[in-house]
């Protein structure tokens, strides 16, 4: 039932607005709306009950194993939430003067410093609102850099074919053409193809390492050297930083600019689709171009660094400073982990992934890159099951929901057929991983014996399998009152 269907004309949650409606004679009639908007009219309890019950229809980290590859669905500490929601933080207006902002600025400054250290970059800007905005900022800096040198003929960004969709999309937003680089059989960048693609038109390359194939790009130093030799810069998509935190740093690998997904590696919540935070880090030569604002510290007080001090900045990406509430959550998390906790993230996420991969392959599932270590995630392909049993990856995914587990990422990266990208994260216990293997094995048995059960899954959720085609064809994107209700 929709909240609109609980609505009755005149019903209200009275305590939630001023008790009287004030007069507004200064607003000319012609500018007023003629009819009130058709928002729901419900009591406070109706709203609370409706949204409480709706929430229960979600899978989430707090309720389910959620091994969604590339998304790092790990535990989101409740302490981060509580401390970011302290009244003093919530109430601060973004345009409050520095005199009334030292506390929050201290947190942001510290976070900049921590992120610099863990990534090996020279400087960090926290302002991008998510990974994709970080990518945009990063590529924009690459462009600003080339432009600043008068090197304006560089028109292409190289992107491996396994890359996340945001990579090419971000490059295009910066006015670049995108050229795809193929991957070799072991999941590494095809070096010959790279060599061939590089040239005076190359502005840079965007890489994720470990890649979205779940393997570490072993020849990263060589790639860096070749791209740099061609005059290009290297962009690091930090979505997979969880795998290498405290082990190897993008700066040390030779990257010039990176973004980090704090909602992944630094465990801020995904919130049903956001908000995230996608800070960018840069090497020295890109520092002048960082998006503003930044926080500086003069040993006594914190200050905002704006366009004034950074005339070459690519500018502002949002009206204010970015998703500060998310940054505070990441900061709390980083402080709780501390120095020694950073590499533990990589250790245990890698341990979990390799264990799960081994158990799955022992159980007869096919690894996409059998000769490789898993990083914090890995890919299995169900092409054999799809072919032999007629039960495809999506069917497995939907049936997993019935077993009380969120499905791994399906059909991404695009170049591995019938794939599941599985990322257990370090916060899951081995019993849960074992239960996942058992569920997969049982689903395969079901696929052999009662394939329809799998193909029509899920069976135990609020709805059965949804008709996506109809959703796109007969667009129903907003509730309309029925004629009767007027």
């Amino acid at each position, binding site marked *: 039932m929709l*909240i609109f269907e609980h609505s009755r004309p005149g019903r209200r949650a009275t305590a939630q607005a*001023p008790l009287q409606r004030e007069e507004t004679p200064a*607003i000319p009639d012609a500018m007023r709306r003629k009819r*009130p*908007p058709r*928002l729901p009219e*419900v009591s406070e309890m109706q*709203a609370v009950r409706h*949204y409480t019950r*709706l*929430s*229960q*229809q979600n*899978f989430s980290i707090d309720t389910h194993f959620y091994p*969604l590859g590339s998304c790092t669905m790990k535990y989101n*500490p409740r302490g981060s939430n509580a401390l970011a929601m*302290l009244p*003093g933080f919530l109430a601060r*207006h973004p*345009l*409050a*003067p520095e*005199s009334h902002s030292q*506390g*929050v600025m*201290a947190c942001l400054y510290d976070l900049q410093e921590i992120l610099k250290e863990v990534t090996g970059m020279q400087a960090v800007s926290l302002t991008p609102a998510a990974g994709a905005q970080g990518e945009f900022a990063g590529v924009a800096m690459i462009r600003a850099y080339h432009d600043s040198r008068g090197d304006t003929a560089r028109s292409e960004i190289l992107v491996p074919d396994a890359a*996340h969709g*945001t990579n*090419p999309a971000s490059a295009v937003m910066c006015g670049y053409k995108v050229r795809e680089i193929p991957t070799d059989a072991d999941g590494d960048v095809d070096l010959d193809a790279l060599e061939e693609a590089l040239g005076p038109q190359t502005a840079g390359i965007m890489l994720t390492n470990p890649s979205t194939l779940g393997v570490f790009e072993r020849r990263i130093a060589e790639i860096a050297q070749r791209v740099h030799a061609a005059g290009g810069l290297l962009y690091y998509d930090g979505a997979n930083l969880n795998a*290498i935190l405290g082990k190897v740093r993008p700066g*040390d690998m030779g990257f010039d600019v990176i973004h980090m997904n704090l909602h992944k590696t630094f*465990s801020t*919540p*995904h919130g*049903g*689709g956001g*908000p995230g935070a996608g800070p960018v880090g840069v090497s020295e030569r890109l520092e002048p171009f960082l998006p503003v604002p930044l926080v500086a510290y003069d040993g006594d007080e914190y200050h905002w660094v704006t366009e004034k001090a950074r005339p070459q900045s*690519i*500018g502002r*990406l*949002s*009206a*204010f400073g970015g998703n*500060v*509430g998310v940054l505070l959550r990441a900061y709390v998390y980083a402080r*709780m982990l*501390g*120095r020694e*906790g950073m590499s*533990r993230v990589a250790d245990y996420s*890698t341990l979990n992934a390799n264990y799960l991969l*081994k158990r799955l392959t022992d159980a007869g599932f096919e690894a996409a890159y059998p000769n490789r*270590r898993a990083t914090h995630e890995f890919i299995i392909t169900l092409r054999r099951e799809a072919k032999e049993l007629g039960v495809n990856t999506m069917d497995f995914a939907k049936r997993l929901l019935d077993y009380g587990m*969120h499905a791994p990422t399906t059909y991404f990266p695009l170049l591995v057929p019938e794939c599941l990208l599985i990322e257990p994260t370090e916060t899951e*216990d081995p019993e849960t991983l074992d239960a996942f293997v058992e569920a997969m094995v049982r689903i395969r048995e079901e696929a052999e014996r009662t394939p329809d059960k799998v193909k029509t899954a899920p069976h135990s959720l609020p709805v*059965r399998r949804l008709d996506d085609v*109809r959703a796109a064809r007969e*667009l*129903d994107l*907003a509730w309309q009152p029925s004629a009767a209700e007027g």
Partner: protein
Amino acid sequence: MPFIPHTDEDVRAMLEAIGAESIETLFDEVPGALRCGGLEAVPPGMSEMEVGRLMQARAREDGQPLCFIGAGAYDHHIPAAVWQLAARGEFYTAYTPYQAEASQGTLQLLYEYQSMMTALTAMDVSNASLYDGASALAEAVLMAVRANRKSKSRRVLVPRTVHPAYRRAVQAIVGYQGIELLDLPYDPAGGHTDPAALDDHADEDIAALVIPQPNFFGVLEEVDVLTDWAAAHGALSIAVVNPVALALLEPPGEWGANGADICCGEGQPLGAPLTSGGPYFGFLCCRQSFVRQMPGRIVGRTVDLDGKPGFTLTLQAREQHIRRSKATSNICTNQGLMVTAATIHMALLGAEGLARVAAASHANTARLVERLTGIEGVEPSFDRPAFHERVLRLPAPVKDVLRSLAAHNVLGGFDLHDDYPELGDALLVCATEMRTGADIDIYYEKLERIIRMRSESRCPVEPKI
């Protein structure tokens, strides 16, 4: 090990299953030369209690000043239920609803959100959020340029009455795609975009016209005339609106003869705390015919195998994960949780509640202006009707006055000097429904004293804080 469940025995058994000697072995594909050191610059770990102590001290440090700043972020009452519900684990720790059947909570909520936003704006369709108001305007501009079949141009008219930070962000975001943003001047007496200013562009090929309502000065624009001008000149109209104001004001879908084409804005006033500027969310609505040009997630209602209604992400072919370099935008993670809060907020307020909030904010600002203009030398800069913000001209440099006020824990407004030097000593003030008469009195008293002492040319004591 905080947040890691593994016991020594677990590790042993797992390594044995893998056939690896140690966890370190699992990193054997990482070239040794690249391995990093101990991250000395990161401080050692702390317990939740210890971090709590630190954060509490810092949160307290910034005090609880009395805030009369608006300028794009507004201090409205948020019902306690909003965040107690939005912070429920099932909303808070889920991700983008890729597996629709396991995400009906989020999906239905997003569908309800889209329905509420279309109701509020009187537009046909809404997406499920963008990052914030400024980046939403950038996306709206990109979308308009793509969607406008009548125009070949990449020129977009942007009034100077649009929030300066929005104009900067739009420039930063759309600049690389060859889009040209042209300023439209404002009427110095009214503070609104003079429709006559459009005459200069009457013969140009313009892709879109941006129309703020209320504008950055709080002033109400002649939206009907502007919208009709755009329609008449083959330009798409892009409304940038305050959603709370829409509870009282004509919605973009009804502007002019045929309504605006695209509507966007900052969702913060709908249940997001100020929190230093984010997370907020951008909303974006448009005509049905442009839906395939929209950036961002969109949720649709459909049916399941049994014909039972359900909800799912739809029109994904617009998005980066399918369309890659040809996507309508690069956005992936959006501001889902803020939309969750906004949806609950709107359900609790309803049309009448939202209208009362809007009216109270309008009335409070009027009271504030009346009070402050009682001070010698303080005058309203513009004479046109406004929503809940007003520009005041002060008899002293705004920067100095604001610093003095801040020393008394009053945040007096936004200094317009850097963005609009032509306005002189101009200050943008706002008093939402959260400010009381007593609060306004405090502002008045402090300001009166500061200005009086200045004019008596004795500087008031300004304790450094």
